[in-house]
């Protein structure tokens, strides 16, 4: 890029300082960037984060394991079920609980639905920010359909708090399966139309291709994970590299890009949605071969019992009391478990010292680590490109600030 050359006293030499955020309609969340502008070109930028810091790690040190699930909802609230499942699996790894296959498949279904919902948000927002409002509104309705499925499964829509340590709180009902099947029928049609509106769209390509390109070395150096890293050409996916929750049983592909630009990130996410659809279809097929009605592991000492059991059954009452008071018999150990979240490797580093609550719980939050490259990479970029770049990085404020 050719930078104009100015003399010292030239009035054109003056830079404009712009406060982009903390609340700005173009940033889709609470992000502040103080940027120096030379015309429309960014000279330097400083990101300020922490506006919705809620001290989750501190709160988690004061809560029994089962009460930490609602905290994880509020990390990446665009794909809460993945966070919930990630936390359950971390504790199950600590306790050494094996899940029945059917539970694993149910988890795959809800995690992949969450991934689709996460990617819908990101990709439609990229489209919206490049001026394609139609595509945004068109595909966004499927996020609503996914939320209806969540509602059927757990009663909540955004902060789902779905599942428990040791399984699910209830089985997926008939309506939930019917809604999933309906979704699988309708969503590919809409996604194909969404792609046909954008993939070869000249305006969209001009705005996104070769913008904010990142090499694989840079991406690894900055700790990028998830679709961002894959768009730069590194085929790292936690689901494949450390298969958790029966992902090893499934047949799916990990799409990778080449240049790490915004267009590649968009394509990678789109392809991941197709793969997620495949995964859900396979999981539904596999569930048919599993004994029906199993939705949790047989671990009464760790699995919070149903309320009617608690009122009518002595053992359930005792276990309920112990779990609620955080007095379960968990090994004194430390464990790191990671899942492939909507925007990268979501890790849980848990240290248990035998107390009622974790001694320390650290969330490895992909948004936080991915976002630190935003200000350095914006240098020399047009302001309008930086805006799309931020959308395409899929930074979720709740996860950024924890």
């Amino acid at each position, binding site marked *: 890029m050719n930078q104009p050359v100015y003399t010292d006293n030239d009035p054109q030499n003056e830079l404009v300082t712009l406060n982009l955020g903390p609340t700005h309609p173009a940033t889709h969340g609470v992000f502040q960037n103080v940027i120096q502008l030379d015309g429309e070109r960014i000279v330097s930028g400083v990101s300020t*984060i922490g506006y919705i810091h809620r001290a989750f*790690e501190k709160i988690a040190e004061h*809560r029994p394991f089962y009460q930490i699930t609602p905290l994880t909802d509020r990390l990446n609230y665009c794909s809460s079920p993945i966070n919930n499942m990630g936390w359950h699996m971390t504790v199950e790894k600590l306790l050494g609980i094996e899940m029945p296959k059917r539970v694993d498949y149910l988890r795959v279904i809800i995690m992949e639905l969450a991934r689709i919902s996460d990617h819908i948000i990101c990709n439609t927002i990229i489209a919206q920010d490049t001026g394609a409002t139609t595509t945004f509104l068109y595909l966004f309705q499927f996020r609503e359909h996914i939320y209806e499925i969540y509602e059927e499964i757990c009663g909540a829509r955004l902060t789902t708090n779905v599942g428990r340590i040791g399984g699910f709180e209830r089985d997926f009902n008939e309506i939930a399966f019917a809604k999933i099947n309906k979704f699988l029928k309708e969503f590919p049609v809409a996604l194909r139309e969404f792609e046909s509106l954008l993939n070869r769209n000249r305006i969209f390509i001009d705005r996104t291709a070769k913008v904010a390109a990142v090499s694989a070395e840079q991406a*690894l*150096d900055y700790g990028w994970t998830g679709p961002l890293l894959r768009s730069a050409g*590194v085929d790292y996916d936690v689901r494949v590299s450390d298969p958790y929750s029966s992902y090893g049983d499934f047949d799916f592909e990990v799409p990778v890009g080449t240049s790490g630009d915004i267009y590649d990130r968009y394509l990678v996410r789109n392809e991941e949605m197709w793969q997620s659809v495949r995964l859900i279809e396979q999981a539904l097929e596999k569930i048919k071969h599993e004994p029906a009605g199993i939705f949790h592991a047989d671990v009464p000492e760790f699995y919070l019992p149903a309320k009617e059991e608690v009122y009518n059954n002595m053992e359930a009452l005792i276990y309920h009391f112990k779990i609620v008071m955080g007095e379960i018999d968990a090994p004194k150990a430390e*464990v790191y478990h990671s899942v492939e979240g909507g925007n990268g490797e979501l890790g849980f580093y848990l*240290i248990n010292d035998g107390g009622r609550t974790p001694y320390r719980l650290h969330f490895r939050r992909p948004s936080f680590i991915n976002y630190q490259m935003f200000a350095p990479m914006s240098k020399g970029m047009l302001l309008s490109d930086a805006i799309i770049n931020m959308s395409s990085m899929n930074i979720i404020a709740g996860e950024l600030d924890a």
Partner: protein
Amino acid sequence: MAEVTNQELIQQLTEKFGGKIIGITEPYGLLTFETTKDVIIDVLAFLKQNTLASFNFLTDITAVHYPEKKHGIAVVYHLHSMVNRIRVRVKVFIDEHHPEIPTATPLWNAANWMERETYDLFGVKFEGHPDLRRILNMDDLGVHPMLKQYPLEDPNRVDKKDEYFGR
């Protein structure tokens, strides 16, 4: 890629660093060891350029506070070799009254914000860090809130005592 076992890594590390590698454990298969702050950057650089398995990806940096220990703050590094699909956890225990440790930013740019977060929450001073400021909390907070001496609840409240709610 050939499988690399934890044993091979331990052997290689002890050959190179000798008595500086202590407390080797493998909780849940994840190789964990402690080292000292004077060699931590050498250890990380050695792991990054390792011939057996190149741990070229910095997954995470955080800290843990153990008020009853002599060296009360553990700085914990998680490294990952994506090619060999193996992780390693490195811990450095440092004095809680002089929590200083060299920065890992020359090795990974990703370390920048992770160290800022650790500084913000635990007060660990990463020597040589290019921009060691608070990141999540406000600049004039005055304390490093994740240290165990700071209670979660307002201590003046009588209805919510920590001992009733676990810790």
